[in-house]
């Protein structure tokens, strides 16, 4: 794949090399402006705006019916939007048919042509460009080498395994050297082991070729490991766009907090707020809680205190450190996962919080058992305050 690396951005040595979305001077590769699509009165995609930069591996994460696939199909040109614009490199693509867009898609079903061999499948897109036979042959051979399928060239596609089909589909889309590669649930059809392996392969390929990827998935683990940025989509809108770390550690609302990873949510009311610290009354804990905040919420407002299970420390002894929230409870349930254990701890009020702990020491005997009285605690800085 010579030439593909030339597609890298010109702002390579800027401080924004890995985070072009923060660079005020960067021009996005893909710009979506006010894009909407309604199906029989229901908005599948609702006034979406988005800018994606060259070299990104951007993930659109959402459940079924969130509109993520509709959005992807509009980018591919298979569905016309009701309103809004799609710009690629500044050129309006909204009315351009799929066969003229510098975009290729890898379908969830892979959509390999069953009446063609692997080689014919991969060569199909190049034949439609009316390239010379010799060049087609070279490019097909090179891309099959890249996805490690050179020995499969003359196979019929229905004789391939799931992982092999996935790689052929990827090769067929990549061989066109698109500016933008759309991947619809690229790993959903693979089994778990293969999925983890393929995930890293996909990242390496993307890095090597410098092609911008947009991945649509419902799988948050996939989104976390793959992406430069994630857009969490719900009911046709983006709830949050950010790096995996931002989305996980600083969710902007309860939907994102719940959708990405597991989180404990405590309903509270603001008692007092000053200097980036908030005092909260909470029925579930029967005591006042303290949290850090960036924007000071109005006193008396309803807020949710969100704490990830792995941010909570569990022990039989009460920890003695400042600026920690400490609660007493009993172990209601525990699950052993080998590398970590998950505890469900019930507070006196009846509220159950989930706690996860690394099993750091090798011991066949559990240190904590069912019905044990325990102290759970978290650093006040690691809890997030969320409004509605």
């Amino acid at each position, binding site marked *: 794949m010579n030439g593909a690396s030339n597609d890298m951005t010109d702002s390579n040595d800027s401080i924004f090399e890995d985070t072009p979305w923060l660079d005020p001077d960067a021009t996005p590769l893909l710009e979506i402006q006010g894009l909407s699509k309604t199906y029989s009165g229901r908005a599948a995609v609702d006034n979406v705006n988005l800018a994606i930069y060259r070299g990104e591996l951007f993930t659109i994460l959402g459940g079924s019916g969130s509109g993520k696939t509709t959005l992807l199909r509009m980018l591919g040109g298979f569905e016309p939007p009701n309103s809004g614009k799609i710009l690629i490199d500044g050129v309006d693509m909204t009315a351009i048919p799929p066969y003229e867009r510098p975009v290729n898609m890898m379908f*969830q079903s892979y959509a390999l042509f069953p009446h063609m061999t692997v080689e014919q499948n991969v060569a199909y897109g190049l034949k439609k460009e009316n390239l010379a036979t010799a060049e087609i042959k070279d490019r097909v051979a090179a891309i099959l080498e890249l996805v490690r399928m050179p020995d499969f060239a003359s196979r019929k596609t229905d004789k391939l395994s799931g992982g092999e089909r996935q790689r052929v589909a990827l090769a067929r889309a990549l061989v066109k050297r698109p500016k933008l590669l759309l991947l619809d649930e690229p790993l959903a059809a693979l089994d778990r082991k293969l999925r983890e392996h393929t995930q890293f392969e996909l990242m390496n390929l993307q890095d090597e070729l410098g092609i911008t990827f947009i991945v649509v998935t419902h799988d948050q683990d996939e989104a976390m490991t793959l992406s430069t940025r994630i857009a969490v989509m719900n009911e046709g809108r983006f709830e949050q766009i950010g790096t995996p770390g931002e989305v996980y550690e600083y969710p902007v609302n309860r939907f994102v907090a719940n959708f990405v990873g597991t989180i404990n949510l405590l309903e509270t009311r603001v008692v007092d707020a000053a200097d980036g610290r908030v005092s909260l009354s909470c029925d579930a804990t029967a005591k006042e809680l303290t949290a850090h905040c960036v924007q000071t919420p109005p006193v008396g407002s309803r807020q949710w205190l969100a704490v990830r299970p792995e941010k909570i420390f569990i022990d039989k002894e009460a920890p003695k450190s400042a600026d920690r929230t400490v609660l007493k409870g009993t172990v209601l349930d525990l699950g052993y996962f080998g590398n970590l254990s998950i505890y469900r701890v019930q507070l006196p009020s009846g509220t159950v919080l989930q706690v996860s702990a690394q099993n750091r020491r090798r011991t066949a005997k559990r240190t904590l058992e069912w019905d044990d009285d325990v102290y759970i605690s978290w650093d006040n800085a690691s809890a997030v305050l969320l409004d509605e």
Partner: protein
Amino acid sequence: MSGSITKAGDKRLGWLRRSLLAPYVWLLVFFLAPFIIILKISFADPLVALPPFTALMDWSATGLQKIQVTFDNYLFLFEDSFYATIYLSSIKIAAVATVLCLLLGYPMAYFIARQRPGRRNLLLLAVILPFWISFLLRVYAWVGLLNNRGIINNALMALGIIDQPLPLIYNDFAVYIGIVYSYLPFMILPLYASLERMDLDLHDAAADLGAKRWQVFVDVTLPLSAPGILAGCLLVFIPAIGEFIIPALLGGSDTLMIGRILWDEFFVNRDWPVASAVAVVLLLILVLPMMWFQRLESRQASGSA
């Protein structure tokens, strides 16, 4: 307890196995046995008697006396170029009608397959609906439409578009109309079946890879519906080639189709042996290319595996 269950299961399986034989029994009784009788008659001599042909085997009290087989009927078919002409003309008419059915049926099947499921069923019902009326009646209705004083000619004359009736009936044109009309559903249904289960992602994928709409059709839709095209063509071509009612009711005196010749040999000339030979040759004309085709296909399938 478990033993009784397996026993019942065995019994049901046995029943199932026996019911799987049903199509073979059907073929044996209603196809193979009549065919053997026809084959037997085709090797006999005509006779003015009842039945109107000689027996192949002469039995007496002491056993089989002699076997008398004649190939005269087949020789007669080959010697008289009249029959060859009729076979060729039948093949031509059936082939043209099949192509017309395909050209008409493909867009219809494609259209139906792309509708919402509810509407799809309604349209399919409309395709099958003519079968609820007798075939003979439906063909006869065309006489009323195409006649010199039929509905079409009357309407055109009343509108002043023509002042002489168009020659719409008793010619090959009317036979084509009859065959295409009667056999179109047999083309549409297998085409629909192959188009309906086609993965639409394949169309999107082809478009995504740079194929224009007509290229998507030529490169993806058409080859993937090939089994439907083949099935539909066979379902139209085979019955059309031996069609009797349509040429008899709508065809002219110069419309030569083997079905009518068969009728004439049986009922007008009462030459059952020649009529049987005509039928056997017709069957061979149909079966031999199909056997060859099937062998070619299976060889191709095993080659690609």
